[in-house]
């Protein structure tokens, strides 16, 4: 059973400028399922709708962003719950306890004028009753931090005293203290140094092993995906164009966009020429007809200019949205 699934999910930024109305189709008809107990990676370039997709599945939709169609389901206690039907007060109970969201740049989310411990306390009291401070708050906090290998000194520090990597790890610890079933992390390693990045990945892996929950990880860095994820979904222009196990994506990419993405990765010890993807990404407010990748695709066919290829299973556990690999294209 999938722990989270979406059906034909569409969310657009609707901008009204005078009489002109502009729709930015940031999430455009997405149907995917995310399994329990896995690390699911979402890859794609900036402006392809990755972050908007995460916001939508976490029900953090605020104007100008609007969810215009489709549905999102969470599996809560073995039953699917339609997220759109859950009232905001009800949803607040799910947030952080069932689904936890680590936004982009979260390392700057800690209150700069209070000690880290106070931030943890703030957060804890909002979601759980504390009768005895020592037993209900300090003990589980210490347990949590030591399980994640974070030093206790962090609690007594102010955020500015910590390095970027340590701050990021602290906010991840904060987001996971209530042991949520789903952790949604948006670019948690961007803007960090390589060593700190590695420490953060290590931490996310540890949390997943310890709590047996699901992590949805968004990053544009394919190397990070290779290192941590079990399955990867590739996003392009608001759509999922390919989805498969991580090894499969790297070894046998089907969609031309994914192939370019994998082929352009520089590797140590390999100085051979690496091409870049030709052309430029399309504007989400003015998508080309048919397949959104067709203006950049070297294998473009007539059908690609007219119809949008659906995301279908082409090999076992390997979905791709391309007429090259689906049956319609071969005919």
């Amino acid at each position, binding site marked *: 059973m999938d722990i989270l699934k979406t059906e034909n999910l569409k969310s657009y930024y609707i901008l009204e400028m005078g009489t002109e109305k502009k729709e930015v189709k940031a999430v455009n008809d997405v149907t995917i399922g995310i399994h329990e107990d896995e690390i699911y990676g979402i890859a794609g370039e900036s402006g392809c709708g990755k972050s908007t997709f995460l916001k939508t599945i976490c029900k953090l939709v605020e104007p100008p962003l609007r969810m215009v169609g489709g549905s999102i389901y969470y599996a809560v206690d073995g039953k699917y719950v339609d997220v759109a039907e859950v009232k905001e007060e009800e949803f607040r109970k799910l947030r952080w306890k069932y689904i936890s969201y680590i936004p982009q740049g979260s390392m700057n989310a800690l209150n700069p004028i209070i000690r880290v411990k106070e931030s943890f306390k703030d957060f804890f009291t909002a979601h759980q009753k504390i009768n005895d401070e020592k037993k209900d708050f300090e003990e589980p906090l210490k347990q949590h931090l030591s399980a994640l290998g974070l030093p206790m000194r962090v609690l007594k520090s102010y955020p500015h005293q910590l390095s970027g990597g340590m701050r990021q790890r602290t906010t991840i610890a904060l987001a996971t203290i209530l042991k949520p079933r789903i952790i949604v992390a948006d670019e948690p390693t961007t803007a960090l140094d390589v060593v700190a990045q590695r420490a953060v990945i290590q931490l996310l892996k540890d949390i997943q092993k310890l709590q047996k929950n699901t992590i949805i990880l968004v990053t544009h860095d394919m190397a990070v995906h290779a290192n941590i994820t079990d399955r990867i979904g590739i996003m392009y222009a608001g759509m999922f164009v390919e989805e498969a196990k991580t090894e499969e994506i*790297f070894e046998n990419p089907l969609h031309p966009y994914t192939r370019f993405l994998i082929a352009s990765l520089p590797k140590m010890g390999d100085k051979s020429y690496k091409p870049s993807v030709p052309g*430029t990404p399309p504007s989400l407010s003015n998508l080309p007809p048919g397949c959104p990748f067709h203006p950049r695709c070297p294998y473009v066919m007539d059908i690609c200019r007219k119809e949008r290829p659906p995301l279908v299973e082409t090999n076992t556990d390997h979905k791709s949205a391309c007429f090259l690999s689906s049956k319609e294209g071969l005919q």
Partner: protein
Amino acid sequence: MNKKDNNPEKEELIRAKNLQEVFVIGGGFARSRLLAVDDVSFQVNKNEIFTLAGESGCGKTTVSKILLGFLEPTQGEVYYKNKFIGDLRKWEEKKEFMKEVQSIFQNPFETFNPLRKVDSYLCDTAKYFGMMKGKGDKKAIEEALQSVGLGMEEVEGRYPSEFSGGQLQRISIARALITKPSLLVADEPVSMVDASLRMSIVNLFKELRDNHGVSVLYITHDLATAYYVSDRIGIMFRGNIIEMGDVEEVLMNPKHPYTQMLKQSIPEADPKKKWIERVSITELETEEYMRKGCKFAGRCAFIMEKCKDHMPEEIFVDGRMVRCWLYGGEKKE
């Protein structure tokens, strides 16, 4: 082997000699000096891509600012074509230096004013450096745009918001190329560019070196592209260059324990090569800067007694420079 230059046939273009930059942090009794850059010496040769790599806060941007003349070094000198740039007093001389050494910045979206058309930047540069002969002479601009794979008609009359990050970065490189410089100083030029377009910028540097004889000082934290593009590399750590030499040597067979750790920490884009060992990171960034001896001593697996009090000097071994007591050198008493 005690030789500074391992490529004697190559001609030196710019040389930094014992650069030091001190920032004062705090005030009153808490006032302390922070050596952001300490004893940094390197050179960029003609027709070569030299990389300065390191984590954020290691001083690489400060070095680039000193080279460009935006920042006065506390100590040390920069020589361009064997001329001390501190001696450039006359405006014409300074302008000549600016014409030869151009820069590209990290974020192409911040480089351009969103309310100004991008071609106005190109025209300004061309006018300022006298690359326009007569009104409406856009030959220099067109040539520069061509060498980055763009055409005048794609750029003319358009605003920055109409371009993607990769295109804007290419335009900003074209702007730098108008004056026909011999050195480009590129500070993290690809970190804000999409993954699919990143290689187009890096490949462009290679092409500029091979076909136009432009040298590039490539400043980055991304060792994978550094390996791909550069000829020589210097690894910086907390204000010092701790290892420097041929890119093949330094990155494929690192000697300094920090370079070794840095190399291991790069995630490889291969799901079969996942990390197994664990790393530890520092909590306090300034703590390492304040260290008396080797700045890496707190995290080093091979720490010795003398590392704690004495900064290793430049030791030349196997055709490269490495600052580590493991490879010999007498401590100064």
